[in-house]
C-alpha cells in the first residue's frame, strides 16, 4: 500500500517537473513581442511593488554612495556651459546672418537603471521611468559617455532598453566632419556568437578610409537617433567577405554594464535642426 502511494507520488513529481519544463521551453520559443507584453503586464500589476522597491533602492544608492561624484560632474558641466555660452551666442548670430536653421534643444528625462536579479550580459536594461513620464518606444537612451540604445518597450512607470549589445541593435553613424557614413551593428564572431563589447561600422565605401581613433557619431538618418550622439572610436578593421565595402570595428564609449543613471531623449528623433525659416523670418 505504502509502496504504491510512493510510486504515485513519484509519478506526480515527474508530471509536475515535465509540465514546468514544457512551459519553460515554450516560454523560450515564444516571440519576443508576446513575452515583452506579458512581462510588461506583470511589472505593471503584481510586480509593481517590487519595481518601486528597486527604484527606491537605486535612489538610495545614488544618494548614499554617488552624491560626491554627481556633484563633481555637475560642477564640471557648469564650467563647460559657462565656457560655451559665448560660442553659442556667436554661433546664433552667424546662423541669423546666414539665415540658417537653429538647432533644436533635446528634451530628456533622467532615469535609474534597475537592479537585475541575474547577471545576463546587459543586452536589455530596465529603467524606472515609463509612459507616464513622457517616454515612448524607440526613444534614444544615452549615458554621460555616449549612446546606450533605445527604448524597446514601455509601461506606465518602467521601460525596457535595447542596448548596443543586443544583436537587433542598428544605428546609422557618421564621422565628425560628416564625410563618411555607415551602419553600426554588433560585431558577429565566426562561431555565430556575438563577440564582447565591439560594434562594426559597415557600409563604408571602398574609396573612403578611416584612421584608427576616429570618433563616430549618430548620423540622424532614420527615425530613432538624432544626429551627433557620440557612439565610439574606431579600433580596428573588421572582416568583409563581399569585397565591396570597408568594415571597421568600433569600441563604444558607453558600457551598458556600468550604467546606473541614464537619460532618455524624448524628442526629436529624426533631425537636430529646426524647420528652415521662412523668407520673412530671414529678412528680419
Amino acid at each position: 500500500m505504502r509502496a504504491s502511494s510512493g510510486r504515485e507520488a513519484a509519478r506526480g513529481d515527474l508530471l509536475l517537473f515535465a509540465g514546468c519544463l514544457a512551459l519553460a521551453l515554450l516560454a523560450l520559443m515564444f516571440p519576443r513581442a508576446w513575452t515583452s507584453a506579458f512581462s510588461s503586464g506583470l511589472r505593471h500589476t503584481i510586480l509593481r511593488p517590487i519595481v518601486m522597491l528597486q527604484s527606491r533602492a537605486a535612489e538610495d544608492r545614488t544618494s548614499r554612495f554617488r552624491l560626491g561624484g554627481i556633484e563633481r560632474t555637475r560642477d564640471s558641466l557648469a564650467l563647460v556651459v559657462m565656457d560655451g555660452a559665448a560660442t553659442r551666442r556667436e554661433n546664433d548670430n552667424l546662423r541669423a546672418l546666414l539665415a540658417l536653421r537653429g538647432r533644436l534643444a533635446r528634451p530628456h528625462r533622467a532615469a535609474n537603471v534597475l537592479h537585475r536579479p541575474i547577471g545576463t550580459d546587459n543586452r536589455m536594461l530596465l529603467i524606472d521611468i515609463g509612459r507616464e513620464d513622457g517616454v515612448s518606444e524607440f526613444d534614444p537612451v544615452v549615458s554621460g559617455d555616449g549612446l546606450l540604445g533605445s527604448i524597446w518597450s514601455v509601461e506606465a512607470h518602467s521601460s525596457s532598453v535595447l542596448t548596443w549589445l543586443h544583436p537587433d541593435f542598428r544605428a546609422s553613424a557618421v564621422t565628425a566632419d560628416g564625410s563618411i557614413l555607415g551602419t553600426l551593428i554588433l560585431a558577429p564572431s565566426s562561431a555565430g556568437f556575438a563577440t564582447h563589447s565591439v560594434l562594426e561600422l559597415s557600409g563604408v565605401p571602398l574609396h573612403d578610409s578611416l584612421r584608427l581613433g576616429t570618433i563616430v557619431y549618430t548620423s540622424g538618418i532614420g527615425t530613432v537617433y538624432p544626429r551627433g550622439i557620440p557612439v565610439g572610436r574606431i579600433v580596428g578593421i573588421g572582416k568583409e567577405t563581399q569585397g565591396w565595402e570597408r568594415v571597421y570595428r568600433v569600441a563604444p564609449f558607453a558600457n551598458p554594464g556600468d550604467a546606473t543613471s541614464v537619460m532618455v531623449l524624448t524628442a526629436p528623433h529624426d533631425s537636430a535642426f529646426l524647420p528652415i525659416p521662412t523668407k520673412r523670418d530671414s529678412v528680419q
Partner: protein
Amino acid sequence: MTGPRFVDRRRRIRSASERGEGVRVAVVLVILLLLEFYLRPSLTDWRGMPDFLVLALLLLAIRQRPGSAAVTGFFIGLLVDVLSPARFGAGILAHVLVGWGAAWGRGIFFADNLIVNVALFFVGTWVRDVMVQILSGTSLRGLWIEAIWWAPLQGVTTAAVGVVIVLLFREWLAIRIER
C-alpha cells in the same frame, strides 16, 4: 486516550503547528526578497553579491518533494525573467532544473550536515548562473568568464549567506544540523 476526541485534538494541534511553520517560512522568504530587491541594489550592483532568490529556491527545495520544488523554481524563474529583460524563459528553465535537482538530490546525498548545505548553495548558484548564460546566447568569452569567475564568486558569497540564514533560522525552516 485513543478516542475520537483525542484524535481530533491531535489533528488540530498538528494543523496549527503546520500553519505556524508555514508562516515562519513565509517570513524568511519575505526577508530574502527584501534583501534581494532592496538591500542588494541599494548597496552595489557588483556581480559577486549573494543571490538571495536562488538561496530562497534552494531553502524551499530541500523541504519539498521534487515536483513541488520544480513548481517553486518555475515561479522564481518567472519573477527573474520578468525583472531581467534578457531572454525570456532562460531564468524559468534554469530555476526549474535547479529546484528539481536540489529536491531530488536531497533524497540521495543530503545528510543534515552544514558542509553539504554549503555545497548545495554553491553548486546550485553556479549551475543556475551558467545555465542562464548559455540559454541567453551569451558570447563564448562571456560564458567562460561567467563559468570560471563570476558564478563561482557568487556561489561562494551565496553559500556564506546561506550558512548564516540556516544557522539563524534552522528552527523556523525545520532544518536539522548535525553537530
